[in-house]
């Protein structure tokens, strides 16, 4: 023990009587006369900043409802002493009229408690109608020892906004028993649960600690404490005895205790021979009910009933991307320098997050001499989150990697060179844009799998942000109007030539508002070589000039002979 902490201990021993911070919060430390101390801190309606700032009209001692969530802050100043080691830490919350009886199902009042943004177990305050109740939570020691502050938040009626579900809290009591010692706490247990994966009601649940042979950094003997929780239909786990089950304290729950549709969770805390405790470890079993992969979606509705990472196919409407490639200079507006059809299947997990994106498309035309690449930028994720990317061009498969140089989004080059895929003719220098050239379109597929599923709102809708770039000048990107350039775009081209791109504003249009690319919302017969789109599809004029009030299907009324295969 160094001098600094010897002094600290001395001070603690001298001042063992209850003391109060500047805030009106009851804080107390008791010397247990066995080398340990018990610290308590109670926060209630009388507490003041920094522990609690009473909201107007709700909070402690008020009936409060879902629109009146509030928080408070516990503190433990001894956390800054590295020799302080915790033997137990509990947060006990006393409240009135906690209507969390299981018979309410998902319609009940469930009040969640989080610390430093992390939901605690049990997942809600436990109590009954019209009575006072106390809910004890085991607080992970890491939440306390990181900075000595615990921001607690009460989410009243967390599943609804029913104003009839109200509750009153009396106090929040933090109790920490600790020792001042150079001995270290045990390691967090590593758990092996049986069965693994999706369980059935015929299974006994058994949890074993796989690091029990190396459970403590000091080699101390370690024992384990088990606390079991179950969700029987409330949407959150509660203590098993609260749910009407046996209060399990060992490492096993027998199958006779479990039912289809339930979720069981065990919390395991290691305690060494000095009474020091580890952070808790958890293992969860889910019992499917007509749900083979236990992802929460009934097999009848699950497109991947045996894959808990995938649940649904979400198809985009087939569209056609048509590009001019001379940006920032004007082209000839035949919109056929690259024409590529696309349809995406965005495969989501049960929570609606994107696990995989599959592209099925085809190169329909390449009316260009310049060699272009075709790529897609995906926001909301990065290359670090890519599990795999597989591509097939005209049946030739290849595994590819994400393009380097992008730190805030993911960019995948689908076609590195449109020429190499479309230069198989000695008769036609272009592909499917000249009279008589009616070769088969070239199929393109891509399958992109993410490590962690991605928020669909962040990644956006198909076709995401598709663009072409000049092979000989990667920075020269051409995007759909108002789509963002990537990090590799040469912004020095902005506002040169015919371009009027405003970073953060309108992009990839001329000052008069004309684009270099369009996404047509269906399959589409592109204009022939050098035929301006307005000559092939005159109705586009009325559509644009009427601000889409007329001519919504302009793309379905071509002029005969002016577009590919529309004689």
């Amino acid at each position, binding site marked *: 023990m160094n001098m600094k902490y010897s002094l600290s201990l001395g001070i603690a021993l001298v001042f063992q009587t209850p003391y109060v911070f500047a805030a009106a919060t009851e804080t107390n430390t008791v010397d247990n006369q066995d080398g340990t101390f018990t610290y308590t801190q109670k926060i209630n309606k009388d507490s003041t900043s920094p522990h609690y700032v009473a909201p107007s009209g709700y909070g402690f001692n008020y009936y409060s409802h879902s629109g009146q969530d509030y928080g408070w802050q516990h503190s433990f100043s001894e956390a800054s002493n590295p020799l302080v080691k915790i033997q137990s830490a509990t947060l006990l919350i006393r409240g009135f009229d906690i209507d969390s009886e299981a018979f309410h199902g998902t319609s009940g009042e469930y009040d969640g408690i989080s610390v430093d943004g992390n939901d605690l177990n049990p997942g809600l305050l436990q109590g009954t109608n019209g009575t006072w109740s106390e809910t004890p939570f085991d607080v992970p020691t890491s939440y306390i020892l990181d900075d000595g502050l615990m921001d607690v938040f009460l989410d009243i009626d967390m599943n609804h906004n*029913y104003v009839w579900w109200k509750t009153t809290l009396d106090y929040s009591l933090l109790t920490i028993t600790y020792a001042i010692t150079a001995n270290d706490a045990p390691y967090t247990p590593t758990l092996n649960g049986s069965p693994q994966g999706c369980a059935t009601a015929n299974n006994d649940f058994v949890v074993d600690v796989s690091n029990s042979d190396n459970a403590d950094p000091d080699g101390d003997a370690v024992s384990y404490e088990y606390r079991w929780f179950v969700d029987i239909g409330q949407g959150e786990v509660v203590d098993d005895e609260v749910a009407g089950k046996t209060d399990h304290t060992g490492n096993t729950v027998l199958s006779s205790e479990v039912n289809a549709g339930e979720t069981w969770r065990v919390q395991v805390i290691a305690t060494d021979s000095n009474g020091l405790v580890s952070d808790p470890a958890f293992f969860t079993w889910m019992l499917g009910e007509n749900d083979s992969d236990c992802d929460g979606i009934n097999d009848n*509705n699950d497109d991947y009933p045996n894959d808990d990472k995938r649940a649904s196919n979400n198809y985009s409407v087939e569209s056609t991307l048509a590009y001019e490639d001379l940006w920032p200079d004007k082209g000839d507006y035949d919109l056929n320098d690259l024409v590529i059809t696309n349809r995406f299947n965005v495969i989501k997990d049960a929570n609606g997050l994107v696990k995989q994106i599959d592209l099925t498309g085809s190169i329909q035309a390449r009316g260009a001499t310049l060699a272009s690449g075709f790529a897609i930028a995906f926001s909301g994720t990065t290359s670090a989150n890519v599990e795999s990317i597989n591509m097939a061009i005209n049946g030739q498969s290849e595994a590819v990697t994400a393009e380097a140089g992008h730190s805030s989004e993911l960019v995948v080059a689908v076609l590195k060179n449109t020429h190499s895929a479309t230069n198989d003719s000695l008769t036609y220098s272009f592909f499917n844009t000249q009279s008589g050239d009616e070769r088969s379109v070239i199929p393109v597929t891509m399958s992109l799998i993410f490590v962690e599923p991605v928020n669909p709102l962040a990644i956006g809708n198909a076709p995401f942000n598709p663009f072409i770039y000049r092979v000989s000048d990667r920075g020269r990107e051409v995007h759909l109007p108002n789509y963002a350039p990537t990090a590799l775009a040469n912004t020095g081209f902005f506002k040169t030539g015919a371009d009027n791109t405003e970073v953060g504003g309108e992009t990839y249009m001329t000052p008069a508002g004309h684009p270099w690319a369009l996404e047509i919302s269906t399959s589409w017969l592109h204009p022939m070589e050098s035929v301006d789109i307005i000559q092939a599809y005159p109705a586009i004029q009325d559509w644009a*000039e009427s*601000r889409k009030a007329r001519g919504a299907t302009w793309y379905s009324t071509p002029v005969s002979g002016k577009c590919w295969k529309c004689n």
Partner: protein
Amino acid sequence: MIFRYMFIATSVFLAACGGGSQSDGSTPAVTTPSSGQDTPPPVVEPEPVPEPVPEPNILSLENVTVPAQFDWSMYKDDEVKIKTVSTTMRPDGALAGIGGKHFMKIVALDANHNEVENPLQKSLTDRTGETRTKLKFPSEWYGVKIEVTVGNKLCSKVFSKDEITGEIEVPCDIEIPVGDGE
């Protein structure tokens, strides 16, 4: 000489770039009467000047007058919050949300109000019975049908594309028992 070749190469390149190529514009050779001819030249009636054929006003997309802030999108593409609600009225007059994770299917309806074969989206709501999503479909289509499975009950509602904005509710004929929190 090298400049000449560069000129030719550049000309070919520019003609091919972007597929844009000018018409050949080939001009017929000029013939000149040989000197010393005895025969007087025939009287040539001047050809009537043809009426000029009016050129179409619009030959190129760049002649289209594009309205300000026109985005060229052919889609309805909006973020929307979808709530599953019961028939129970809250004291504040709103319908009570149905908590719990429910299976939700969103099917697009084409211009003829027919269901498009593959759903736009299938997923679970969050634990409050809500989901936030961006729906994208061709702007000439009618809208969507949203189906929510609450327990064994299938509830659905059709929304026109103009209704798909902000926050929309799919009602389910389920009574929520009012708690006695007061």
